[in-house]
């Protein structure tokens, strides 16, 4: 099984690599656009096909181990990336997504034992995958928004005119907020099935709510008469809250009674 996985993963990564290369070249040679797109999609389809095959071989959804969940992320994250790029005309997102998927697959190839590392019963849920995929894509978008905003701040300090930069960071934040909202609600729906209640103010939930509020605040500040260039500072810093939510929660005093502090690699 591991053997088949390596072949599938390598095939997918090669598709993504060549697809990315062609799509970079397509800036000069528009004829390459279509093959670039088809190859990039093919990478995700290879992973989707492998999941289907693996599923029927196992006779159960491949959802029991960490390694298995990464298969889903690797198939779905690029697909979501293409969809976002298609609707929102955000150039470059697909590269991030394919890189993220490649990274996740590489973990599995370098550490085949993650196929043995098992998930506790509560994590064996159909909600787990959409919840994590949506959050990972949301984080990618918001990280990109923060980096753009930081760059905008830098340009401001050097007194350079840069209104495209400001709309890019804005759109990324807007879209990232959509994904955070989905992630939060998927998490709540899953918690109801697994733990009996949709919201218990568990520290991880509280911090996820806080990061959502941070971007909610941004959206409304943007809609109001607030100087857009000042909001670049806000966007650049908002990501700090997300980082606390992702990595920091385990170190806070409140984490001692969290259901989310299972350590995973």
């Amino acid at each position, binding site marked *: 099984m591991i053997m088949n996985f390596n072949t599938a993963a390598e095939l997918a990564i090669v598709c993504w690599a060549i697809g990315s290369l062609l799509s970079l070249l397509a800036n000069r040679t528009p004829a390459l656009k279509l093959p670039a797109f088809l190859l990039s999609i093919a990478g995700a389809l290879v992973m989707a096909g492998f999941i289907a095959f693996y599923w029927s071989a196992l006779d159960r959804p491949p959802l029991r181990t960490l390694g298995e969940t990464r298969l889903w992320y690797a198939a779905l994250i690029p697909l979501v990336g293409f969809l976002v790029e298609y609707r929102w*005309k955000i150039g470059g997102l697909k590269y991030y997504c394919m890189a993220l998927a490649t990274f996740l697959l590489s973990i599995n190839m370098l550490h085949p034992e993650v196929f043995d590392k098992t998930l506790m019963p509560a994590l*064996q849920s159909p909600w787990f995958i959409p919840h994590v995929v949506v959050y990972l894509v949301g984080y990618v978008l918001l990280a990109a928004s923060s980096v753009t905003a930081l760059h905008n701040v830098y340009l401001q300090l050097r007194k350079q005119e840069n209104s495209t930069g400001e709309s890019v960071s804005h759109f990324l934040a807007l879209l990232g907020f959509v994904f955070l*909202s989905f992630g939060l609600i998927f998490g709540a729906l899953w918690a109801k099935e*697994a733990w*009996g*209640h949709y919201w218990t*103010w568990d520290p991880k939930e509280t911090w996820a709510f806080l990061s959502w509020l941070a971007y909610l605040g941004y959206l*409304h500040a943007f809609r109001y008469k607030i100087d857009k260039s000042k909001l670049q500072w806000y966007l650049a810093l908002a990501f700090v809250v997300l980082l606390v939510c992702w990595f920091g929660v385990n170190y806070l005093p*409140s984490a001692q*009674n969290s259901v989310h502090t299972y350590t995973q690699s």
Partner: protein
Amino acid sequence: MVVVRRRWFQAPWEFRESALFTAVSVIAGFIIQVAASGRGIAMPHLPFNAIALSVLAVLVLSTGLAFKNTHAVKWFGGIPLGLCLILAIALLSLIGGIIPQQPVAKESLPVLLGLNQIFSSWPFAVTVLLFLANLGISLSWKLIPFKPQNLQFILFHAGFWIALSCAVVGSSDLQRFVVPINVGKANNLGYTMESETPQHLPLSIYLHDFSLEEYPPQLLLYDPHNDKLMMNKAQAILEVRTGTTASWQGIEVLVLDYLPYALPGKDGVPQSADRKTGIPFAKVRIITPSTQREAWISTGSPMLKPDAAQLDGFYLIMMPGTPKSFRSAVTIQDEQGHETNANLEVNHPVSFMGWKLYQMGYDEKAGRWSKLSLIEVIHDPWLPAVYLGFFMIMAGNILFFWNGIKRREVVK
């Protein structure tokens, strides 16, 4: 740009007044909290909470519509106050995100202020109430007259209003009980988190069988002098299977044979047994710089001592695997005679007559041999309303996503 300095409270009100108002409200909340000597807010039950919520909804919407053009209401339903309230909720949640949230017996200022139970405290309730008023008023202006282009706004804001208000108001009607049941017995007594005395439930659960499946056991090296488990070279979890190898400094271990369910035989060699009684046994070859030998080790069970292999002052031990799944076969019955058979498993709750039953836990000391199952029984009449809110927000999300960037290309 010419900056015109606005005096305090000069219409139209904006951020300064909103911040002041929000701060005063939160402080007032804390004062009430202290005056109530640290006791949080007590929400009325059905139907009174539903009536109160409807009154609030009607009041907020009609105020918004009737006084649409007054400065005060414009301000009360505006974004500046909304932002200040979002910030207040964020700050209160931040307290809840840092300070452990649990009841504390000791009297102290933080406890009196409700900082250890911030989400059921007065300042939080006051802020949420104002938030609902603010959000509701801004909603009223977009609801009536209805325009299709406002649909996305309505889905987001009304969805959030419904989800938040019903979750808060309905929390008093949420009933959660833990029902401990032994195999072959029925129980209709449930325990809550808050009290030691059980309550009679309108349903009873009979437990036919409890079964637990484990992942394969793990191989570990134990140092009795320092009471420590030694990390192996690969730093990975070592699942026991035939052919598993492991190495610690100077010690090599190979699993020659693995029996997931076995019992010790007469001659000391374990024999395969059935799933119910058998325990994992492994035959290992241990190679140290000075010796090489073979031994059987086992995880043990409540009835059987574990077998470990001793070597150079260390013990090679086998730990039972972590639980993979566990389930209870039950018959549920209510007082009207409705009855159903079900298999309860983590992530697979079962609904019965308005209640939802969850496999929660078992006797962890007994592990696979547990004769006890803990079932959580939950009744939450407000759940459909909260989910309605969730689905409205998600519908708004999809619309938002699908509208994409096209119609927003000119932002500035």
